[in-house]
């Protein structure tokens, strides 16, 4: 199948491209920019005038909910939502039921996603069995079955000796470890950032030290073991500084942030709206400023959705009794574009944080429009305004605090492996 994407503004930070040109796709591969290859006959023409053409987005943290929690979302519903949001590669968390700790589950998820054919799904494996923090999961076997990284999620491995061994073992096989840093004793049964708003609302707070202590401990053990490490969804300004200091010491650690932590603060929880019950929690304006600064200086290189779809019941209870997380796949791009609108970063730099940067973190071949690469492409109208309604969301999870808001930037077409997997 031959596709030509005509007249769009083609932006690819890896190729230093930012120009209006035609992009040619042949049999799943990007074959040319500007000039058609010889004897190229297009089967399909996509009119991309006044639109941006960029690599398909890569989301570093998505909860697919399948297997095990299909009342909240399925691989079908969530990968369809992903491509509607311009995301062609999803890194998915291991907290399914059963947990991703056997090759069978890792393969099941990838097979199901491949059969559906919307987005590429890359599982993260459990770092310890049952995510319980006691026994190593079979990391090598899981990696052979397609797991791109290993994490214990927010169940920090309490015993530092066990954590050390996990990191040593991962380093043995040159595997990437992803930390969602949180000290569980300090986080306790907290449900929001510990500060004046939590004090006023009488909600139990999660202090910033719940994150920073765990970031510090992990950084020291990363340094000791030399493991490839990535810190996901930082929420505190001090975490950014800890990562920055470690990088200055020469540690090759990377970090990402959720778009919601770049835009919102804990003050949103006023009124007990459970849509703002998030994990990591929304933090102070100072933290938000620190995260934004971290993005500008390059300490944080990627932005993710931390997509956590829920059924309506999960959010219908008093705040602390609700389940944390927001549905974020379809708002990742438009919300991120607001950072360009706010003049925090330029559009090509933003696209880098959503494409090439996460690909580098994972060390995968994706996130580029380079000639010869697989044709994962996102085509969006940066000026289109639309209102976020539950009906507008393809995700099974309608749990987003942005419902009712007018968003700017809308995906019009998504290609995965040279196939049109979404078209508005």
């Amino acid at each position, binding site marked *: 199948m031959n596709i030509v994407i005509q007249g769009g503004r083609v932006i690819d930070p890896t190729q230093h491209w930012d120009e209006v040109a035609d992009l040619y796709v042949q049999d799943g591969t990007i074959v040319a920019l500007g000039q058609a290859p010889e004897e190229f006959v297009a089967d399909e023409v996509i009119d991309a005038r006044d639109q941006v053409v960029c690599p398909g987005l890569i989301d570093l943290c998505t909860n697919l909910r399948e297997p095990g929690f299909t009342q909240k979302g399925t691989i079908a519903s969530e990968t369809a939502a992903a491509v509607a949001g311009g995301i062609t590669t999803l890194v998915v968390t291991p907290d399914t039921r059963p947990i991703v700790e056997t090759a069978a589950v890792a393969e099941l998820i990838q097979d199901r996603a491949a059969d559906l054919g919307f987005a590429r799904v890359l599982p993260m494996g459990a770092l310890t069995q049952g995510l319980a923090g006691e026994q190593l999961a079979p990391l090598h076997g899981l990696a052979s079955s397609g797991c791109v990284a290993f994490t214990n999620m927010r169940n920090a491995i309490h015993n530092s000796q066990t954590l050390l061994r996990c990191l040593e073992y991962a380093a043995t096989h040159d595997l990437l470890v992803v930390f969602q840093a949180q000290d569980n004793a300090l986080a306790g049964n907290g449900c929001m950032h510990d500060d*004046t708003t939590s004090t006023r609302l009488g909600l139990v*707070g999660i202090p910033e030290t719940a994150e920073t202590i765990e970031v510090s401990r992990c950084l020291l053990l990363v340094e000791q073991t030399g493991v490839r490490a990535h810190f996901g969804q930082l929420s505190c300004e001090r975490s950014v500084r800890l990562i920055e200091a470690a990088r200055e010491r020469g540690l090759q650690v990377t970090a990402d942030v959720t778009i919601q932590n770049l835009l919102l603060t804990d003050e949103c929880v006023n009124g007990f709206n459970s849509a703002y019950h998030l994990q990591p929690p929304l933090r102070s304006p100072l933290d938000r400023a620190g995260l934004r600064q971290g993005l500008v200086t390059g300490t944080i290189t990627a932005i993710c959705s931390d997509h956590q779809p829920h059924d309506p019941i999960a959010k219908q209870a008093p705040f602390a009794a609700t389940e944390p997380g927001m549905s974020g796949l379809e708002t990742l791009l438009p919300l991120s574009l607001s950072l360009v609108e706010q003049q925090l970063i330029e559009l090509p730099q933003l696209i880098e944080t959503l494409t090439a940067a996460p690909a580098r973190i994972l060390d995968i071949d994706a996130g580029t429009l380079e000639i010869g690469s697989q044709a994962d492409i996102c085509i969006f109208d940066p000026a289109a305004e639309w209102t976020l309604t539950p009906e507008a969301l393809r995700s099974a999870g309608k749990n987003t605090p942005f419902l009712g808001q007018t968003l700017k930037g809308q995906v019009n077409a998504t290609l995965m492996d040279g196939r049109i997997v979404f078209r508005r």
Partner: protein
Amino acid sequence: MFEATDPNAIQLTPDGQLRHFLTIEGLPRELLTEILDTADSFVDMSQQQVKKVPLLRGKTVANLFFENSTRTLSTFELAAKRLSADVLNLNINTSSTKKGETLKDTLMTLEAMHSDMFVVRHADSGAAHFIAQHVTPNVAVINAGDGRHAHPTQAMLDMLTIRRHKGAFEPLTVAIVGDILHSRVARSQIHALRTLGVGEIRVIAPKTLLPRHIEALGVKVYTEMTPGLRDVDVIMMLRLQKERMQSALLPNESEFYKLYGLNRDKLAYAKPDAVVMHPGPINRGVEIESEVADGPRSLILDQVTNGIAVRMAVMSKAMSGQLSQREELIQEEQA
């Protein structure tokens, strides 16, 4: 961009009348003063032979207590009965929600009984807000205590007690003593004292029992009783739950009593005419010495009496706000 709306707007009608009573925070001073004035008249009435008024006649008040409390439940029940309402008391075992019935299911069942008012106590902060947002617009919600968040009728009965003994609020220095961290009473008291213009509000507690940045609520923080109680007009003690000893917040009761328990020696630092209050039930020898609790400066029993009057005032105000809103809705439908 992306900012939340005023969270407390929900408790007022568009023309500023009370229709739910969820938190003191955000309510105007005039409204609090009106509640106190109305409550004052009910205090006087309770000393008469006939103690009933027909303000809620024909209305049904459902007391929904998801957390046990004999005292608060009985004062709300008595208040509703003195307003001539029909009263339904429901002690709802929170484990029923664990059996799969959600709070929303419970509410829908109760709505079908056509109550006009829910008086709600729940262990989760924000539960009263949640209920107010999810019941039909025809039900007024009164917060009888939600988690650590608010206990607004308790704070108002404390304000009534202070006003009846001290008159004006402005010249007063008030100290709140004890477990501020876990206390919905303290939070509501602070909002009420601030709104009513009290000169100085102090909290006195060890750091383990102080929530983060409590000073942002407009209080001065003291960790010792001696400087904290110096020259105060009003001392508001809080109840200490025994389970605090098990979570490394405090070593034991006797050390707490030694440092923060109110006895005659510590009371001497306060002004000579300082009064002592406690929301009850009292732990004698933990928060307070019996001689102080039962002494001439203690207003603890006045608080109980005033509690009924304040709850009558709040219920009648919320019901009238609710009724005026219902009329508007009917008029809108007809138009």
